[in-house]
């Protein structure tokens, strides 16, 4: 499939297309109704409290934002590193990244205590805050993606494709660094305050984004009668396997470093000793089903060339990614702040005890709303623009 000969086509806007959009719009409306209820009542109806201040909405939001950055992998490999195989998929890569990012940002905004003050967030900046920088990085990435897509769509600008791709690559690396730094910069929390958060989030983005891309590509292909070639799918799978392994490596480095320092032993026991909920989620969800099982599916001789196994593996990577976010975000808050190292603390404000957190339906609604909004962007984009190549099959060997 040479890039010059690739022909793109919109999805046929048949009944199933509009049906899918209607379902997603319905999910969004239900979520927005939940949001209105939440804003009317206040956050006390959620599981979040003064101990665990960020909950399920943030798990979904950060996952989507990180995955958005990683969804651009294919674009980067195609446009920056010149891999011809991926070039026909660069448009989908850009569109998916934009959709995931918009979905994640929507959740963050809808969860604010004062979402009506979005204009304040856009007009008052404290440039020492990584949060403030991230507002620019997130909205900026949308602009960079728009520029990249424009270049892809305009043959006259084809010579700028690599430059736009490099800009997008650098931007998303900085963005994911900034997202990891939200946690890395928290000096007082036992589970955070670690420079490795930045590169960990970058490699997580590669993994989650590639997994989401694979499933969306397959779904879009199946929904539009295009058959995705084995070679392309398994090439993406091999890439994903490397990223999953790399995430495991960074997680290992993080915990090994913490285990070396006695001051972190309490937190490490909390995550690793298989007693707390977070520890079970870590071992069973993140490491087991989210990493080792996919790796086995991707590499085992009997399953490595099985399409179903590949898709199941990608789905498990996404599930494991959400669980990893849960362990990082919620687990990091549930573990008590240490005000007096070596002492036992107690108070009416839950000092010295593991904070409780029971997610509420309202929080899941916000999370699902973000996913639905992101998918609406993707589905609408696929219907309106020539994003998908007409032919996704493997190239025929030259005769």
């Amino acid at each position, binding site marked *: 499939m040479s890039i010059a000969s690739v022909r793109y086509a919109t999805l046929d806007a048949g009944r199933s297309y509009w049906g899918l959009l209607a379902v997603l719009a319905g999910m969004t409306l239900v979520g927005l109704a939940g949001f209105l209820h939440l804003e009317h*009542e206040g956050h006390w109806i959620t599981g979040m409290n003064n101990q665990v201040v960020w909950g399920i909405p943030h798990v979904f939001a950060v996952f989507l934002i990180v995955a958005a950055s990683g969804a651009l992998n294919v674009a980067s490999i195609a446009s920056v590193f010149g891999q011809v195989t991926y070039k026909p998929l660069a448009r989908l890569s850009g569109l998916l990244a934009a959709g995931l990012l918009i979905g994640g940002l929507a959740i963050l905004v809808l969860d*604010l205590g*004062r979402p009506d003050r979005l204009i304040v967030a856009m007009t008052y900046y*404290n440039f020492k805050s990584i949060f*403030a920088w991230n507002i620019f990085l997130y909205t900026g990435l949308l602009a960079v993606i728009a520029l990249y897509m424009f270049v892809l769509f305009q043959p006259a600008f084809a010579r700028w494709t690599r430059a736009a791709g490099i800009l997008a690559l650098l931007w998303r690396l900085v963005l994911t660094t900034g997202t990891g730094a939200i946690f890395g910069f*928290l000096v007082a929390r036992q589970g955070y305050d670690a420079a490795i958060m930045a590169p960990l989030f970058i490699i997580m983005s590669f993994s989650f984004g590639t997994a989401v891309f694979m499933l969306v590509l397959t779904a879009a292909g199946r929904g539009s009668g295009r058959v995705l070639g084995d070679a392309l799918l398994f090439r993406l799978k091999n890439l994903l396997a490397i990223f999953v392994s790399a995430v495991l490596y960074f997680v290992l480095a993080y915990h090994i470093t913490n285990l070396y320092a006695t001051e972190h032993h309490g937190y490490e026991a909390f995550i690793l000793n298989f007693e707390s909920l977070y520890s079970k989620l870590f071992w069973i969800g993140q490491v087991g089903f989210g990493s080792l099982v996919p790796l086995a599916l991707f590499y085992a001789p009997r399953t490595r060339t099985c399409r179903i196994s590949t898709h199941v593996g990608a789905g498990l990577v996404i599930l494991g990614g959400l669980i990893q976010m849960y362990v990082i975000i919620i687990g990091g808050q549930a573990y008590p702040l240490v005000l*007096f190292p070596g*002492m036992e603390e107690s108070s009416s404000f839950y000092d010295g005890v593991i904070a409780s957190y029971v997610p509420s339906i309202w929080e899941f609604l916000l999370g699902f709303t973000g996913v639905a909004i992101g998918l609406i962007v993707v589905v609408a984009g696929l219907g309106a623009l020539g994003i998908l190549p007409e032919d996704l099959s493997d190239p025929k060997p030259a005769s």
Partner: protein
Amino acid sequence: MSLDLTRREFLQGAGAAGALTLAPGVFLYAKDPEVPVTDAVRWGLLVDTRLCQEDCDACVEACNEEHNLEDLGRPETDAQWIRKLTVRDPLGGRTISLPMMCQHCENPPCVDVCPTGASFRRIDGIVLVDKHTCIGCRYCMMACPYKARSFIHENLTEQLPHAPRGKGCVESCTMCVHKVDAGENTTACAEACHKDGHQAILFGDLNDPDSEISKRIREFGATQIRADLGLNTGVRYQNL
């Protein structure tokens, strides 16, 4: 001078005039609102844990009353600006009790992370939240090493003019800034502790070498909680 002066106007007038003598040796200084806050002072609190009684929460009650912090029966989401903390040394079992609140850091992590600048530190050392620009993101609560901040999880009624609060914003100890600016030279917690006869909490100007708080720190020393973080807290503790 008109007879229907408000208390604030009266205090302002007195402040402009210099000082109002309430009783021999007791002066009331009122800050003229036209005069900016100055870094010539740094307000702070000194807590002597030996004088703090474990079964006493007069400071907490006074703070709740001063700022109308209600007990809504939901301890996980109810706001607490000050709490009594019990600290036990597992080696030997020595137990101390102390009030924990915003430590009014010189380098506050909450101010560093706030995206809109709503978390800010006045140059007289008091760390506050601008309720007009707080968007309720709660990043400051993630960053505070002292768990000093509360998010308002519900609608509030019957708020007090000097302590505006609202659903969806974050708040914490203001070091009774309304009292400080009115020249009362104390906080509700320090006042209550004094009234109860414990005198464990002392308010004063850390920059004034002649202030009682400075003298006591100079004489007996004082400790910062999580001093390793280098935040230079405005609340210091003795006999930890």
